[in-house]
Each structure stands twice: as structure tokens, then as C-alpha cells.
């Protein structure tokens, strides 16, 4: 992991490469799924009125505390999703988000494979004590993925958020501590 704070991050798995997202990588294909409100309904992505707003948003990711990584399929060289990590050094915690925009890749364990690598980065490079996620309660795939990686549901925030399509939603809090990830890695021989 040749990364230094402020420099672009690159993480590789068997099937995918994650790289710090740059605005030139938002081709029409990527732009279309980012703007697809049905697809991103429960993702927690902001609403972007246009491409310029999206490009402005990308500038917030400094590769120091805020990371937005595109997920590129090695086989097709296509950007199929995004992993986001917001790191809070004062509390040694990080919040994770993900969206898989290419429907062809749903149900193919992309999140499990790529998030495992991102968790290694968060715990062992950033030295996070805890990684957590806030999931809209109807985002069943996200719930599945957090559980499959060993995260615990720590609570429910009632009517806490509104989905992209305007549906008021409970938020489920998922969390995982570094020592728990150590154990999971041993168990699963990651």
C-alpha cells in the first residue's frame, strides 16, 4: 500500500482495483448511474443537480481524511461502483459507504471483496479503532454486506433520514472494532 496522506490511494483485490476518484473518470456511463435516483435510492449519496455539482463534491475528498475510491473491474476495466471512507482522527473512527452502480455486478460479492481491503487500510494504515456504517433500513443488500463482514447492528435511529426518492427511513448503525476485525481476518484466513 504505497500511500501517503494527501496522495491518491490505490487498493487492489483479486478482481477489482480501487483508486481515488478523479473527475475525468466520470464518463457518461458512470455519470448516469450516479444520477440514477432509483438505483442510488438508499445509498446515502447526495443529490447532484448536474455534473458540475458532482465534480465540486469530488473536490472534498482529500485522500487524507476523506476518501472516495472508484471500484474498477479488472476484467472489463469499467468503473462499477464507489467506496467512500470518512476518517475522523480525533475519535480514531471512520464511516464507510458504498454504492455498486452497475447492476450486472449486484450479488457478486463486490462489496465484500473490496470492503475487506478497505477495512485493512482503515484499521492498519489509518489506525482506526472503529469503522461504522449508517444504513437505511430498506437497504437490504447493505445490511447483508455489513453482517457478512462481521459488523454488529448497534442500534436503530427512527425516521432519521430520507431516501433519494423521498421515503422517510430508519437508519441502522453498524460497527466493527479493530480487534474484532483482527479475529475475523484470522477466522476467515483473509
Amino acid at each position: 500500500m504505497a500511500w501517503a496522506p494527501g496522495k491518491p490511494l490505490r487498493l487492489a483485490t483479486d478482481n477489482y482495483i480501487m483508486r481515488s476518484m478523479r473527475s475525468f473518470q466520470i464518463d457518461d456511463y458512470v455519470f448516469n448511474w450516479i444520477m440514477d435516483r432509483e438505483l442510488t435510492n438508499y445509498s446515502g449519496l447526495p443529490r447532484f443537480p448536474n455534473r458540475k455539482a458532482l465534480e465540486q463534491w469530488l473536490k472534498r475528498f482529500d485522500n487524507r481524511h476523506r476518501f472516495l475510491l472508484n471500484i474498477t473491474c479488472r476484467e472489463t476495466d469499467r468503473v462499477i461502483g464507489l467506496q467512500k471512507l470518512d476518517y475522523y482522527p480525533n475519535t480514531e473512527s471512520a464511516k464507510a459507504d458504498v454504492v455498486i452502480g452497475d447492476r450486472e455486478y449486484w450479488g457478486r460479492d463486490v462489496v465484500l471483496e473490496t470492503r475487506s481491503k478497505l477495512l485493512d487500510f482503515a484499521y492498519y494504515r489509518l489506525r482506526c479503532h472503529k469503522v461504522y456504517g449508517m444504513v437505511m433500513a430498506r437497504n437490504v443488500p447493505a445490511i447483508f454486506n455489513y453482517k457478512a463482514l462481521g459488523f454488529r447492528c448497534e442500534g436503530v435511529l427512527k425516521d432519521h433520514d430520507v431516501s433519494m426518492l423521498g421515503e422517510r427511513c430508519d437508519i441502522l448503525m453498524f460497527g466493527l472494532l479493530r480487534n474484532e476485525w483482527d479475529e475475523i481476518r484470522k477466522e476467515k484466513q483473509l
Partner: protein
Amino acid sequence: MTDTVAKARQLIADALEISADEVDGDASIETLDAWTSLGHMRLILALEEKLGKQLEPSAIVEIANLDDVAAILND
């Protein structure tokens, strides 16, 4: 095998697009490769359709194996 467990097996098999024979008594997220995030979503939707109501978030979080699905059908 109780009727409810048999129904749960079939529901899981349909959602994961596998044979009911592959859903044994220990079937879970851990043991079935076909139990992916997409399969899980199909399973939750099928359960909700069968019950005629949306599942509570806590129930969605708990479902991880055959027994959990059978318990929901029993409620």
C-alpha cells in the same frame, strides 16, 4: 421436517435460485455460496410478499439462516 421449515427451505431456494435440496438444516449466509446480497434482498421481498407486510428493520437484520426464516414464517 415441519411444514414451516419446508416452506422456508423453498423460499430460500427460490430467492437464491438453487434447488431446495441444497438448503439443508444448517443452511445459512455462511454455508451457502449462493446466499449473496442480491439473493438476500430477493428473500426479504419474498418473505414480505408472503406475510403481506414489510418486515421490521430488526427482523431484517436478524435473518441469517434457515431457522430465522422459518421463525419469521411462524410469527
